[in-house]
């Protein structure tokens, strides 16, 4: 297996372009050309910018899902981690607003710190259940999903939280050198994740633990602490996504994205070529773009059709199963 070798040697760059990345790039380009040809509004600056504003949140959660899947786990609570983190950060900023009069930009720092701490705590509970206690990750994270959503409902009483300082909306609405800030955050996080997974011993241990936990254990890797770190990282990624959502929509709702986001993050993760022991940050990012292009493209095509958002749900379901099937054939070909 040639793939296992890469990333083993810190500092060693690999020049071979992987099949998955190549394939996803081709699909992405074809989709862009397709939608650009049949829809005039698709390749305009405003449409591309709105896509760049929209995709980071789902992409960050996709990365969080992917890293959990790399150790043969799953993080179904990631969307609710994002909502809960944003909620607690939002509440603290609303409560602390009088202390920051005149220093509003400091409040943004506080938001980040509180949200990331909450996300890490949510992740730590997942890591405790899935890693140390040894509960099946699907059930463990389904349980924490219910718990986190429940906490969000209790805190807000089921209402949407609004009324944040204006400075907070900068993250979700402003551009730096023409690039939307959420997208910049997404790229920075993506690059960091790439280096962590490819060029650090932690990344190597994650791969080992995911490929063969028994062998990893006998090589002196503590699978449990790896699981704990991975779930904490996953929670933090969720929290960053939560901040972006909060800033972009100027509100926090406990039910934001609960209908399809878990499906979409898994879709991104699988499409990006994640499987136990194998993960590909570039693939996940490309998969995010593909998903966004599809979403925006179909949205434009179906504009005016009654109930088109329901058709979208239907298509996501079909697409997800189709991608699982394609992935099955790709993996089978590789193993022969």
């Amino acid at each position, binding site marked *: 297996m040639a793939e296992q070798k890469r990333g083993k040697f810190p500092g060693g760059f690999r020049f071979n372009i992987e099949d998955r990345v190549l394939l996803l790039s081709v699909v992405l380009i074809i989709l862009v050309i397709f939608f650009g040809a049949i829809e005039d509004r698709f390749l305009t600056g405003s449409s591309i910018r709105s896509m760049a504003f929209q995709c980071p949140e789902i992409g960050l959660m996709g990365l969080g899902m992917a890293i959990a899947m790399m150790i043969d786990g799953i993080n179904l609570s990631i969307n609710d981690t994002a909502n809960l983190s944003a909620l607690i950060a939002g509440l603290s900023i609303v409560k602390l607003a009088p202390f920051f009069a005149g220093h509003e930009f400091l409040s943004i720092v506080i938001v980040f710190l509180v949200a990331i701490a909450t996300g890490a705590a949510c992740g730590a509970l997942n890591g405790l259940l899935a890693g140390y206690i040894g509960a099946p990750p699907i059930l463990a994270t389904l349980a924490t999903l219910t718990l986190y959503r429940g906490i969000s409902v209790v805190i807000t009483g089921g209402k949407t939280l609004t009324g944040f300082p204006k400075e907070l909306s900068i993250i979700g609405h402003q551009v730096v050198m023409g690039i939307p800030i959420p997208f910049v955050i997404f790229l920075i996080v993506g690059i960091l994740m790439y280096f962590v997974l490819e060029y650090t011993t932690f990344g190597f241990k994650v791969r080992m633990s995911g490929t063969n936990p028994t062998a990893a254990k006998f090589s002196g890797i503590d*699978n449990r602490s790896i699981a704990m770190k991975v779930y904490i990282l996953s929670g933090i990624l969720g929290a960053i996504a939560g901040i972006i959502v909060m800033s972009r929509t100027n509100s926090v709702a406990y039910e934001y994205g609960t209908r399809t986001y878990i499906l979409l993050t898994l879709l991104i993760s699988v499409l990006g070529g994640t499987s136990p022991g194998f993960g590909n940050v570039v693939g996940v990012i490309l998969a995010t773009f593909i998903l966004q292009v599809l979403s925006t493209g179909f949205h434009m095509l179906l504009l005016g059709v009654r109930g088109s958002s329901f058709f979208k749900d239907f298509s996501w379901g079909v697409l997800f199963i189709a991608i699982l099937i394609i992935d099955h054939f790709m993996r089978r070909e590789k193993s022969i």
Partner: protein
Amino acid sequence: MKKLLNSHEFVVFLILMIISIVIGFRNPLFFSASTLFDIVRGSIVYCIMGLGVLMVLISGNVDISFVAIAAMTSYSTHMLLLGLGYNGGIGLYLVVSIVFGLLAGLLMAFIVNQFDLPIFYVSLGYQTLWYGFNLFFIGRAMNFNLPEGLVGYYSRFLIKVKDPVAGETGLHVSVVYLLIIAIFVWWLLKYTTFGRGLYAMGGNREVAIRAGFNVKRITYLMLALSGALAAVAGVIQGAYSRSFNPVLFMGQDLDVIAAVVIGGAAITGGRGSVVGTILGVLLIQVLNRGLIFLGVSAEWQKMVVGLVLIIFISIPAIAEQRQGRLKYFPMGKEK
């Protein structure tokens, strides 16, 4: 006798009793025939779906698409029969929706078997797909036009009681369906090759295959049955609530799975029983209603369910760890 006292089901039963007594002491209104029958009636549909979930959990899988299958089958059946001018009772509703449920389950099993995919992933897509299908192709609004045969179904009782607060209430007739289904599933699990195969699959899939179980056929039967049970639950719920809803049970998948897990089903060890599932559903129902009786607002329900679920998945996992049987990442196939 000792075996009974040590069983998981007995522990759940004890917890159920303790919670009921505590709630009853705080609010004596809780101890009444009408509350009991109300809890039973509220539990029937979840028990029926739970028995389908039980089979899937025993086999070592998780399926969350049953809620969408319940919605799709009941709503489609209703719209179809309404369009045909059907005016009879629940019988034909059940038959048609069971056919839909079986087909949906078989299609899912086909995808799972043919492409060797984890049931959980497929079910995630399947859930979104069928809710979307329902809303886009069949209809968006709740439908309140019941055929004559279904009018008044919600108040057909086996035993009637008069209650000063709730008026006339009683033990609903659909409890008969639950009894038939529960005995059927119990028989399947205990006395058929299919049932034993489910436990074997859950214990160790590889060993089950080596032992000669036809794992693919078991998967077909399991998902088809689970789909059919979801369909029955969907129709009964529609008849109860006097309306058919395209997003029936949306977001309630976890409550049912939680109930079955609390009832002792574990996706790691091929465990679980019919009695445990029914007790688990009752426990969740009593908790939910009990919170209201205790004056806790409804917002706390989800959090409490989450906490209880975490406790109930942790206990068996810790016990397994004590026995040194922990698989490091139990979700994956053993390597």
